[in-house]
């Protein structure tokens, strides 16, 4: 590691020009978002802890399938969808909305009006998730992956979403300056796409149900677009804000960002049907999705290059800034996740990986290694600005990072290799089918181990977050660095 003195820590250009008035304005904007954003984050944290514990339970019961078989709501087949839905709608979506609302206010340079309406929306969202989860546990799951919530819970979620996002979008009316920053493209896209996606899926599955296999096509289309155009878009938008902000340097190229954004919107929205490869669908649908998946190499390359060139020379800052460390990990995972996505969508690999744990591993990489890590990064940045305190223990942040990074790394590795072994056994006719299941079990024990790491990491983070929430953070003008900085000069933007 480079000696601390060589690290190009410098005053960000914006703050050099920033007058006291601008600092004051920023503080006013942050204050206006305090209650709703903390509400989102606190709910997200609670859901994350519940989801983590359930994921551990799910991971454990696959090795001990006879446990709790007398209680319908404790069986694997019901707890698993509950766990996934809690992580998708409880943790992921609420963290994404919290970060998005804050970023929107900052980037529109306007205070958030009517924050109480957003808080009401957040409550409604929590109620919607709770209704949906209860319904699944009681046996009212719809049976569509990621859309297991019955339609009445989905309706509550949509109403909540309207309350939240109409105000976030309205901030645009009051924005100052006509430059629309890259992050705002992604956020506006996500705000528009999510309700359309969710409403279209609900309508096509429950209101005017489509016939036969088209339901599965709509389901996969929904699932993939939720991953890319909702979580992915908010994740990438956040990375475009956090990376330049922390290192105090503008984004390398706007042109690359434009190409990256539009190709992302165009190509990743067409993926999804590769999940039904060689299934009962017209072949063109699957081929179109495979082609679109391969074409996502364009946004991956441009966005990755853009982030890399922005970071060029500033990588050592990751040694100090928690936000940067989590965000860059997430941004790099986006590249890995997409390349894995391309590789597993090819027909020649799908022969082995279709119907295996590898597909689960792929979604985990997208939802966790890419999206969740960026959300953690943004929370480390935003929360001190909302509560007026700094994170108390650098050690806890480091523990959180390494437990998360090793946890998700181990989990992805186990699921991808386990999936390959499983798929090879499934295609090997000299083995009975049960042997293909048995062949993946050792890898699933590795997943259970990874779950232990992730549980540790989430509880550490929740504890730290709780300290901040109750005003027990450090009172200081200097942000919390992961490692002490000996160099002179301050780094106010970390």
């Amino acid at each position, binding site marked *: 590691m480079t000696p601390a003195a060589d690290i190009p820590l410098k005053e960000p250009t914006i703050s050099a020009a920033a007058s006291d008035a601008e600092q004051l304005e920023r503080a006013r904007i942050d204050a206006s978002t305090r209650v709703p954003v903390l509400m989102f984050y606190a709910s997200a944290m609670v859901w994350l802890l519940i989801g983590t514990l359930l994921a551990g339970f799910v991971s454990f019961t696959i090795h001990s*399938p*006879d446990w709790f*078989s007398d*209680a*319908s709501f404790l*069986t*694997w*087949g019901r707890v698993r969808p509950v766990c996934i839905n809690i992580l998708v709608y409880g943790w992921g979506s609420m963290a994404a909305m919290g970060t998005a609302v804050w970023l929107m206010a900052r980037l529109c340079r306007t205070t958030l009006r009517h924050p109480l309406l957003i808080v009401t929306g957040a409550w409604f969202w929590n109620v919607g998730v709770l209704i949906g989860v209860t319904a699944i546990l009681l*046996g*009212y*799951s*719809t*049976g569509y*992956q990621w859309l297991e919530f019955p339609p009445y819970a989905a309706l509550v979620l949509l109403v909540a979403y309207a309350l939240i996002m109409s105000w976030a979008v309205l901030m*645009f009316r009051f924005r100052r300056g*006509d*430059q*629309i920053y890259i992050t705002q*493209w992604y956020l*506006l*896209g996500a705000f*528009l796409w999510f309700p*359309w*996606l969710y409403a*279209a899926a609900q309508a096509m*599955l429950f209101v005017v149900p489509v*016939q*036969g*296999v088209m*339901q*599965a*096509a*709509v389901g996969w*289309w929904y699932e993939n677009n939720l991953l890319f155009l909702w979580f992915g878009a908010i994740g990438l938008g956040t990375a475009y804000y956090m990376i330049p902000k922390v290192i105090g340097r503008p984004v390398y190229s706007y042109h690359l960002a*434009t190409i990256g954004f539009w190709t992302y*919107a*165009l190509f990743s*929205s*067409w993926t999804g049907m590769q999940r039904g*490869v*060689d*299934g*009962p669908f*017209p072949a063109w*649908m699957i081929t*179109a999705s495979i082609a679109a998946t391969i074409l996502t190499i364009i946004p991956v390359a441009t966005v990755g290059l853009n982030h890399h060139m922005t970071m060029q020379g500033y990588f050592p800052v990751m040694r100090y800034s928690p936000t940067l460390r989590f965000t860059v990990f997430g941004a790099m995972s986006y590249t890995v996740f997409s390349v894995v996505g391309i590789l597993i969508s090819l027909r020649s690999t799908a*022969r082995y990986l279709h*119907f*295996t744990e590898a597909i689960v591993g792929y979604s985990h990489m997208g939802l966790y290694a890419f999206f969740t890590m960026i959300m953690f990064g943004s929370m480390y940045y935003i929360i001190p600005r909302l509560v007026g305190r700094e994170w108390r223990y650098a050690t806890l942040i480091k523990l959180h990072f390494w437990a998360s990074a090793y946890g998700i790394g181990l989990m992805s590795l186990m699921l991808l290799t386990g999936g390959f072994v499983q798929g090879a056994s*499934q*295609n*090997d*006719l000299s083995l*009975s*089918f*049960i*042997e*293909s*299941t*048995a062949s993946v079990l050792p890898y699933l024990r590795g997943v259970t181990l990874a779950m232990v790491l992730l549980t540790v990491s989430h509880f550490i983070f929740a504890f730290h977050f709780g300290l901040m929430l109750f005003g027990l953070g450090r009172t200081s003008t200097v942000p919390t660095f992961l490692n002490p900085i000996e160099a002179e000069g301050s780094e106010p933007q970390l």
Partner: protein
Amino acid sequence: MKGLAPLFLGLFGTFAFSWIGLTVIPNIQIGGLNPQSDEEGSDTYPTPKSGMAERGRRVYAANGCVYCHSQQLRPDYAAADLDRVRDAGPSPRPKWGERRSAPRDYLFDRPVLLGHERMGPDLANLGKAAQAEEAAAPAAGSPTAAQSPPANAAAQKPAPVAASPAPTNPPAQASPASAQVAAANPPPSPSASPNPNGIPPAYSAAWHYRHLYSPRSTSRDNVDSTMPAYKFLFDKHPIGGERSADALQLTGRDAPPAGYEIVPTYDAKCLVAYLMSLDQSHPLKEVRGIAAAPAAAAPAGSPPAPAPPKK
């Protein structure tokens, strides 16, 4: 980027493109299929499932069966699905299927439960795997026994080998035809012979009850199964007078205490009715089957082509 209008148009346009391209247009193409009939308008396939089986589909969805079991077979050039045989059953074991799945197979399915993962075997033709035993010996408490038309046996002509119970099976003596077929086949493997624990014939309704109640008890090879037990789908009653006809025959660790019996709930009966109704063996015009291959190995005198029953 300046100006909100081009941005919104772009956001709207890209997503509209995906929505129309991947859901609306395919829905026009395959969203309005009709069942297939022969020239006389009979022999319609597929047909809607019975009420019990439909309710069983809800039970299947509610309890997450779809997270481990697929209900779709890939074509022979894509994967080994069509060559795979089930782990249980008389030798030769029933195959997963004779042809790939097609959109028309799922016309009446709601929700459609294609599945995306195979921790457990594919179930697209699970009902077919049992028909041999079902036709010969309706298991106690089988809800489908009344629904399966007797003509089903004739519909299986392309694969008469699948209709051969183990010679030691009592039902085999009832049917001289299948006994003859069985004699032409190699002797069944040891695990196919009836288990001393009183395991019902594989994939019969009674077997499904046993398998749902205690998945790892149905075969010695099955101890690695990760399938959860669904004991909550069964009731434990004190035996009042006569033993119930549909009570499970359990031994060893699973057996209820003396004076008690384990009977399936109505949900369990519906679920089993649904599982027994899963059958994609009917030929479809748009799918090139591989039905001719096993027919060639059939004893002389069998019709080589599928002969659908006339009503």
